[in-house]
């Protein structure tokens, strides 16, 4: 039997993390959480999570940054907003999950070879490069980066898509890609300024 320490010392906390998250637009209401568990009760994916959504909320509020950013929970959120709609304290749990995903990506602490953040990154990159998403390419790229073998298992699906005329290898793109690039650059500039 392998044993692991589960106690948390004060040194395990990152003081200010909770406050910091709660200062982000959309995440303010977290301070009202009464830990009732409605979010976990309605979450269709809570059954696969390492921490239930309720536990994530408390971990954030108690400054357990590392535990939260490394958890699978934030990546399992499918953004169905059921928790946000049902929460008796009107906490926008889905938006908090987004915020945590962003932080995990920024700090590169998400589980490696985990397809979900990879998909998000590839998606974003494609929007940057072309302005639009071509689903076939996107999925192909994701499999190549995470689990190339699994791509083979998708061949049947590809065939079916082709049969129904829904398979396309053409990369769709917008005309004014430079315009979008400029907007993105400006956002970075604004955010950099705000942080400075």
């Amino acid at each position: 039997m392998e044993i692991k320490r589960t106690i948390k010392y004060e040194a395990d906390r990152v003081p200010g993390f909770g406050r910091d998250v709660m200062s982000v637009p959309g995440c303010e209401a977290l301070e009202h959480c009464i830990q009732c568990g409605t979010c976990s009760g309605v979450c269709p994916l809570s059954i696969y999570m390492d921490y239930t959504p309720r536990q994530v909320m408390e971990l954030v509020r108690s400054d357990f940054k590392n535990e939260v950013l490394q958890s699978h929970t934030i990546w399992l959120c499918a953004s169905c907003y059921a928790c946000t709609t049902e929460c008796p304290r009107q906490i926008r749990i889905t938006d908090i999950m987004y915020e945590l995903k962003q932080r995990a990506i920024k700090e590169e602490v998400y589980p490696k070879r985990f397809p979900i953040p990879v998909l998000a990154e590839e998606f974003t990159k494609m929007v940057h490069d072309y302005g639009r998403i071509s689903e076939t390419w996107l999925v192909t790229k994701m499999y190549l980066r995470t689990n190339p073998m699994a791509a083979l298992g998708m061949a049947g699906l590809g065939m079916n898509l082709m049969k129904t005329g829904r398979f396309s290898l053409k990369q769709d793109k917008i005309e004014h890609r430079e315009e979008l690039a400029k907007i993105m650059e400006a956002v970075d500039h604004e955010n950099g300024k705000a942080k400075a």
Partner: protein
Amino acid sequence: MSAKKEELRIGFYVCHCGHNIAAMVDCAVVARYVETLPGVALSRDYKYMCSDPGQELIQQDIREHRLNRVVVASCSPLLHEHTFRGAVEAGGLNPFYFHMVNIREHDSWVHTDRGEATEKAKALARAAIQRVAHHKALEIKKVEIHPDVLVVGGGIAGIHAAMTLANAGKKVYLVEREPSIGGHMAKFDKTFPTLDCAACILTPKMSEVGSHPNITLWTYSEVTKVDGFVGNYTVQVKRKARYVNEDLCTGCQDCISHCVFKEPKFADDFNEGLGKRKPIFIPFPQATPQAVLIDPEVCLNFKRNKNPDGSPVVGDKCKKTCVEACGEKHAIDFTQKDTLQEVKVGSIIVCTGFKTYDAGRSPAYGYGNYKNVYTALEVERLVNASGPTGGEVILREGKNADGSPKTPKSIGIIHCVGSRDKKTNLWCSRVCCMYSMKLAHLLREHTGAEMYNFYIDMRTPGKGYEEFYNKLLEEGTHFIRGRVGEVTDWAMTPEEEGRLVIRVEDTLAGVVRRIPVDMVVLATGLEPQADAGEVRRLFNMSCGGDGWFLERHPKLAPVSTFTDGVFLAGCCQGPKDIPDTVAQAGAAAAEALVLIDKGYIEQEPNTAHILEDECSGCKSCIPLCPYTAILFDEGRKKAYINEALCKGCGTCVGSCPSASIVQNLFDDQEIFSEIEGVLAYD
């Protein structure tokens, strides 16, 4: 002006209120500043002005330093103005040579910068010093109190208040909207935590009310109009037609059995729609008064004979077997009409109760969608021996293996339905944890089912309540800490097929669970009555933001309202259980008794009067007065005010074009000097 005749000698006191004021306002600085103002003879700061030594200090100073005005800067005048006026009077001064400055609620508690808060205190103090110079000696007037009392609402609160007053020899009018008194308590089977039978303890009180010589009981009646003020209220009551003469009906119920409807056919409100009644009915066996009534919406006599405008008329298209059965008593009277009755009372106790949260507003729990989802009040009737099933717990949907109506093998009770939720009601309804456990116990007793209680936090703060929780734990009831996400009927496993599934996070175990049950009970919370807004206006009360009637002070005046002579008891003021309700009803009765036995009430002398020489006789003030206290002397062409009717709002003063109306305690000079005073800072 009197102030000119004698030298002004103002005493000023700034209170630390422990740290409450002193932590944010530099009291010594304020005292030193006020000392420099004209007319101030003495300026002190003191730890607790409202304490006996503090009041003693004022009295001593008045005597020793010949003070003729006093200003105290401390908490809100709504809290202690009365106290300090008393001290001033005890010191030998007219109590109205006093003014109070609020530097706690309006200053130290709401600001964060000590410098700014101190500056504000100085400005407010200066305003009071300037104002008090203009104060005049006034006399307190006494108003007589009519000894009769109106109690509105015949639930346990109204019953207890009425009985207390009646036993003290006072005459009481008890007005109840429903055809019988008893309220919600009459629907309950047992009461927590003692599990004594609700009917057994309530019924004797109900019949006592019905027969008490000092109580006039008007059921099926509503208050429609309230005029007057403390001591002298005129109340109009609408008595709805029950088409049965209450005095002649003996409650034999022969009419019911002889009704042309052989079987009960119409949804029975008292049984939460779970049972049926006939058009002529008695709400429940122990109803008080013991008199039947007719529902004109469904009674054939009215239904078949209607005026073109839809109003009922007496016709001959029903056989009227009820009248026949009533025989010589002649209690049934199809010609009865709604009537208006007027009574005079001196005080009013409002006990209009609550309504339960509409479970349909929480669609995730499937009420109305899944038949075997019940509200707690429905279950109260279901387990009740006099309920629609005779106390047998049988489900609305499904059959047992032998074809008999289905009895549940497992039951989930969901706490906090509609409560503690920003989207519905944010408050905790206080009784649901306890009644849920009571129902868990009763349902288990009746069915032997596996019981699950889903709670957010278990709240058992009452005598014997925690012990009751412990008893339930011993009985083997499952307590799962988690607010239920949803109740559905789709199955993931064979055992879930055909049952209701509760999906919840067991937050203490940290796992999400699916629990199949046969019956779901929703512990719906308590809400203000649907017409609480109108009732509030009727009696000139206030409501909190949540809709419950507002008491005058949450701690020190819990049964008084902002209107003198109107008191509150029971759940109309906020959710509470039966012991608290009865205690509050007793308190409200005691408050009314204080008024009655004292015989008079002292009235704040803030009334208005007209300076006859200044009045131009324009009459513009006359329509402004809501109490018709302003009259016109046609001979002298001047308006004059009947000070007995004046309530002291000052509306006429604010609009007199010739500035000829003066309001005591709020005259122009006093206010102008206060304005100047608050602005003289920096």
